[in-house]
């Protein structure tokens, strides 16, 4: 790179830095003025004061006398619960629906196509409200064979009590994300050459076995990266839980901020939490990606 170019670039860069600093400075100045005006400054001391609000669903013992920090941890656990179960079920539903799109059964194919076309064009929030107010709150009291018990108080599964809120958020996320995953899986399957299908069919393998053992493993490298971003979407979308009153991380943060007025601190904590969550999901997926690619390479 010629020297003079560099010198020109240096000035542009300096200009950008100065402009950004001026803009940032203006913002910081405004925010300090506003914080002083409203009598607030950055302070995390409130985290250790008692929260004073009750939470309907707690994975660990919690009482209103516990601190805000502990309430946030409980929210974290609730988020994590719905996200992890959601990831698992959404993947299963998505793979099934995506595989159904390339099934030889025409009815199955169009059913799965209809599911994707309907779900992806309707806002998730609307779907969540539907699952909550119509589907789960409208459940008649029905014991099913003693093992499962449906009611508008929730679902009792063996010894497990699932709240209506949890079930609605979970179902909404799974159905919504499943549709997107189905599209990805379909794309991945389509990318595997027809010859592979013909090969296992000519070997007399069953459709399902061939799909599971031959086609999907080859489609995985194309599917996994897109799957990661869907998983991240599911995690981010889980914050809509607040609309049906499920006490996830965002809902607890929202209440905390409303009570304490600590918007900036609350925002920073939420930002950090989600960065951590994203890191966990993408890290996990990267590990899986590596494992899959490694296995493919070994088998070659």
């Amino acid at each position, binding site marked *: 790179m010629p020297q003079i170019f560099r010198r020109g*670039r240096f000035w*542009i*860069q300096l200009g*950008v*830095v100065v402009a*950004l600093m001026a803009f940032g400075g203006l*913002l910081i100045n*405004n*925010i300090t*003025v*506003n*914080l002083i*005006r409203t009598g607030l400054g950055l302070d995390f001391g409130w985290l250790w004061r008692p929260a004073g609000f009750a939470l309907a669903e707690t994975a660990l013992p919690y009482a209103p006398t516990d601190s805000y920090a502990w309430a946030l941890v409980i929210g974290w656990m609730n988020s994590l619960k719905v996200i992890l179960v959601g990831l698992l079920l959404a993947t299963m539903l998505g793979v099934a629906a995506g595989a159904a799109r390339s099934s*030889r*059964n025409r*009815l*199955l194919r169009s*059913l799965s196509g209809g599911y994707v076309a*309907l779900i992806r*064009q*309707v*806002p*998730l*929030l*609307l779907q969540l*409200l*539907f699952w909550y*107010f*119509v589907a789960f709150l409208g459940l008649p009291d029905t014991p099913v064979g003693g093992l499962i018990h449906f009611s508008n108080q929730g679902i009792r599964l063996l010894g497990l009590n699932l709240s209506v809120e949890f079930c609605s958020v979970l179902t909404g996320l799974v159905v919504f994300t499943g549709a997107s995953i189905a599209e990805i899986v379909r794309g991945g399957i389509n990318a595997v050459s027809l010859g592979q299908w013909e090969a296992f069919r000519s070997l007399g393998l*069953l*459709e399902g076995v061939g799909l599971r053992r031959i086609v999907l493993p080859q489609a995985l490298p194309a599917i996994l990266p897109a799957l990661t971003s869907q998983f991240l979407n599911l995690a*981010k*979308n*889980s*914050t*809509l839980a*607040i*609309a049906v009153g499920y006490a996830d991380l*965002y809902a607890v*943060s*929202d209440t905390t*901020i409303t009570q304490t007025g600590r*918007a*900036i601190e609350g*925002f920073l904590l*939420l*930002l950090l939490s*989600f*960065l951590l969550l*994203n890191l966990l999901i993408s890290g996990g997926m990267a590990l899986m990606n590596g494992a899959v690619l490694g296995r493919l390479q070994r088998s070659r």
Partner: protein
Amino acid sequence: MNRWLDRWLTLMLLALLGWAGWSCLHWLWRGADWTVVVTNLPLYAVGSYPEAERWRPLLCIVAVVVLIVITLLGTRHGEWRRSLPLLWSAMAPLGIWLLAGGLGLSPVGTQSWGGFSLTLLLTAGSGLLALPLGIVLALGRRSDLPVLRGGSTAYIELMRAIPLIAVLFFGQLLIPLFLPPGVEINRVLRAVVAFALFAAAYIAEDVRGGLQAIPPTQREAAAVLGLSPRQSLQLVVLPQALRVALPSLTNQAVGLLQNTSLMAILGLVELLGISRSLLANPAFIGRYLEVYIWLAAVYWLACTAMALLARHLEIQLDPVRSAR
């Protein structure tokens, strides 16, 4: 063996579909009461807009629908076709003027904006703001100036890590904090800004994908003709990159339209918000399903229309196909 499985599966599915269809019909015939939808159509369309002025947001919606129909069906008249882009770009300022008033119309405060007209306005306003911002961010991320590149990358990645509802919530709370004391912007504008800041990060990634798809030889060809780097970007690289990015930009636009519903949680009475306040009315207690089906139909239609429009645009912009 395989064939038997197939037949059995078909039968099972048919039985399931039959049962579902029967229950739906039964409910529609016996259980459903559509008064909650039919009597409140103006509310869904324009919210609590002053009754005497309702024609304004309605005119807005009608204009958009007419424009969509004209665009999709296409006209044989070349003049009409050529003026379509102009008409579309006039839509947003026209819509804002009609809703807000001024210049001969009586002003109406944003607190009375609502319904589908507000949904449209939020979508169009934030989309129009987000597109240029997204392009700038994408170019910034590909710049060889480390400061620009680092700044754009950090913004894009941070924004994409946070859930939208948090961006919107803190947009309402924090944007005023960043403004000089005494300067206030209203809730709708704050929402539009927050949506735009959020969408720009996603748009930037789509545009970046488009930019990456353009081979460096195109820049070379432009440089050899004496075009400056800026001219080369503006006349050669960006037009091609945006065309490549169009399908994913469409998805973003459809997502934006769906996501405007989140403002219902934050108290704006756009389409979903107005429905929530309707359902809180004792006269319509428990009519969730009717309202939700109605809303789903409206959103589905709007999103599908948007996707169709984008496909239309794609064909128009494809030089080879449109030249035929």
